[in-house]
């Protein structure tokens, strides 16, 4: 920020601390309610996974039928956890990077409550049977304008902060966050208006819906997560991002490619033939922006392995970037229209890709950032390194199981579905064996998020540890102690 005299450094620290303090309530509100929804979503995911291999489980209860529980699971994951976690990131990072304190706490918290009420009513609506049946948009139609208004109120302050930022160009994080803040209303408004207000041909509606899902992942959650990574990596490692050029390529290629993706899910449907092919090609091409961002950050992270071993934030960020790389490699290999797409189109494999994107990549990055941000906004240190380690390990093993099992099982299931000589039941039975493993993985992920939620609640109540030193994953060696304190 400025010269290196101890006094100016201390003044800088106080400035940042003031920004953090101004954001304490909004950031903690969104992280707390987000992680509560995440726990609910994991529970619903567990129930729906059990019902895949054990259909009689709670089969007497209409509210708990698979079509409703699964929809509630996905929508709480996306809007309850994902969006609110993204709000916390946007609010904190935009304020920090623009050097401005948050001055709209009241309206942000009000809108935040509106958002949560909208989701709660929406989820009850889904479970009561009023879902729309459109993936990722299952909330009854009244919910979407409410959420959009709440969104606008929550992020408007961050736009203003960016507008009045200090002299100098925007940082890489800000490109991504600002883009995400603009792209979300575009994708959300387009899909909801086209599907709810001016419904056209139903087959095309399914296509728009598939585009919406892809747009939410690649035009909102991905840029929010990448913006966060581009902040956490240089901040925690103390090393610069390796290449500004590569960062630019990564950002603009995402902006150009991502809006084309999504329609490959409709391959074989009677929509204009080029749409699924363009969607498949764009999804494969997302490898480029993701690879650019991942390589750029992973090089800095791997150049500072001592910090990677110590810092919870960096460990989670690292795992999230690895998930991103796996996700986009799958994107290349699962979208070949004449071979693999058929097997992934209607099977567990597609679900696996969604979970890998939403949990393996996005959520891991958010967890990492939360381990960095929460001590700053609450001015308390995390209580227990063991809880952090458990959160990490259970989450990693869980997501590896979900991704690997659902990809392999989904591929086999899809191959069976494609085989016209086999009855459909065979494909379902093929999938059922793998669904057992997914249930097991959901148990682990649910447990890991229980640890996170407990830990976060204690921090929210300001019961965290007081003291100057961070909570690290292992005891740093004496020689590294000074350096590790950077976390």
């Amino acid at each position, binding site marked *: 920020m400025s010269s290196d005299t*101890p*006094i100016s450094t*201390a*003044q800088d*620290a*106080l400035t*940042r*601390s003031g920004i953090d303090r101004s954001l304490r309530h909004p950031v903690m509100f969104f992280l707390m309610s987000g992680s509560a929804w995440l726990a609910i979503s994991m529970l619903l995911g567990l129930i729906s996974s059990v019902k895949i291999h054990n259909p009689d489980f709670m089969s007497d209860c209409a509210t708990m039928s698979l079509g409703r529980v699964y929809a509630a699971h996905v929508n709480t994951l996306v809007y309850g956890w994902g969006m609110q976690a993204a709000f916390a990131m946007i609010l904190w990072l935009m304020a920090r990077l623009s050097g401005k304190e948050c001055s709209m706490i009241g309206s942000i918290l009000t809108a935040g409550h509106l958002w949560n009420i909208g989701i709660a009513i929406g989820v009850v609506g889904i479970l009561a049977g009023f879902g729309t049946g459109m993936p990722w948009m299952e909330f009854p139609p009244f919910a979407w304008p409410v959420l959009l208004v709440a969104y606008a109120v929550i992020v408007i302050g961050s736009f203003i902060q960016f507008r009045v930022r200090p002299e100098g160009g925007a940082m*890489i994080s800000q490109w991504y966050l600002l883009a995400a803040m603009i792209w979300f209303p575009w994708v959300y408004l387009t899909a909801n208006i086209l599907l709810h207000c001016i419904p056209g041909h139903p087959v095309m509606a399914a296509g728009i819906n598939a585009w919406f899902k892809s747009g939410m992942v690649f035009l909102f959650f991905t840029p929010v997560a990448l913006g966060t990574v581009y902040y956490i990596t*240089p*901040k*925690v*490692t*103390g090393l*610069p*991002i*390796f*290449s*500004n*050029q*590569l960062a630019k*390529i990564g950002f603009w290629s995402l902006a150009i490619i991502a809006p084309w993706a999504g329609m490959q899910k409709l391959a074989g449907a*009677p929509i*204009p*033939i*080029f749409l*699924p*092919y*363009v969607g*498949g*090609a*764009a999804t*494969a*091409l997302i*490898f*480029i922006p993701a*690879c*650019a961002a991942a*390589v750029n950050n992973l090089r800095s992270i791997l150049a500072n392995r001592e910090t990677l071993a110590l810092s919870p934030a960096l460990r989670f960020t690292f795992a999230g970037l690895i998930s991103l790389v796996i996700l*986009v490699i799958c994107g*290349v290999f699962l*979208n*070949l*229209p*004449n071979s693999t797409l058929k097997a992934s189109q209607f099977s567990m494999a597609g679900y696996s890709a969604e979970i890998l994107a939403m949990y393996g990549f996005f959520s891991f990055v958010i967890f990492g950032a939360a381990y960095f941000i929460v*001590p*700053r906004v609450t*001015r308390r*240190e995390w209580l227990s390194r063991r809880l952090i380690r458990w959160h990490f390990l259970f989450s990693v093993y869980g997501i590896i199981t979900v991704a690997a099992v659902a990809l392999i099982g989904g591929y086999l299931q899809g191959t069976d579905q494609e085989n*016209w*000589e*086999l*009855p*459909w039941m065979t494909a379902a039975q093929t999938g059922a064996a793998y669904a057992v493993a997914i249930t097991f993985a959901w148990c682990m992920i649910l447990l890991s998020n229980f640890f996170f939620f407990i830990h976060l609640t204690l921090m929210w109540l300001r019961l965290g540890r007081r*003291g*100057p030193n*961070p909570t690290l994953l292992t005891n740093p060696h004496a020689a590294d102690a000074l350096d590790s*304190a*950077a*976390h």
Partner: protein
Amino acid sequence: MSLPNQKPELEGTDIQRRAAREAAACGREKPIAKPGSAPISVWVLAACGLAAVSAGAILGGAGKGFDYNKIFRDGYVRTPPPGGSDEGPPPKAAMDAYMARGKKVWSSKCITCHQADGKGQGDNFPSLVGSAWALGETERFSMIVLNGLHGPMSTGKIYSGASGMPSQNATNDLKPEDLAGVMTYVRNNFGNTKGDVVTVDMAKAAFSISAKRTKTGQTTVEELTAEHVKDLPGKPLDPKAMVNPLTLMPVFAKTAPDAAAAKKDKTPEAPAPAAGTTAPK
């Protein structure tokens, strides 16, 4: 401990002390360094190039052009599933297929006048149950359906006043399959048990005969008895022969000549298993 914020102006050491107390976490942060300008690794370029090539291959599969009216790939030919044959929908016995088509036509076009039981309605619409003109020569029957009929019947009775039965070809845009189906349906339903199938080929012949008629408008009893008391030309079809339920054509008539030649030796036994056991699931 002193309270620095009570002093009018902070001194340097106080700022440091306050920062250490209030902003410990922020104080140990490292500044974000300016992004470097390291050259982009060749491996990254190669991997991205590979992804771009496979994306190009995917896009190339669509054929050329961003055409919103095109639902199929250029030159797309439906390929049979591996291990299966490509004969369209599962074949059905001829009588069942023709009756199904006939029922569809009947219930949308004939049922209003001739009623669901085929018995018509008193003075207005004649009954087709046991009717000699429906069960007799097929050409005469087809001319009535295609062109309609008015004037006194052979019994002297006049139905529906002067208007009579309208031409179904003119009002309903019949296809040969529809005509064949509905004629078969009438001849084998409502208690009628003729047992034969009026084939699509016969129906096509009926259309060409109808087109060559010297008189215009609805037929009359005189015209029918003078010119049309004969059966339609065309090979009779075994009611048990397997046909495509959509085209109503025998299943082996549609294949390409070379494929038909290759299948010739199998033809006699092929229809039997197709009856139910190997229908696609």
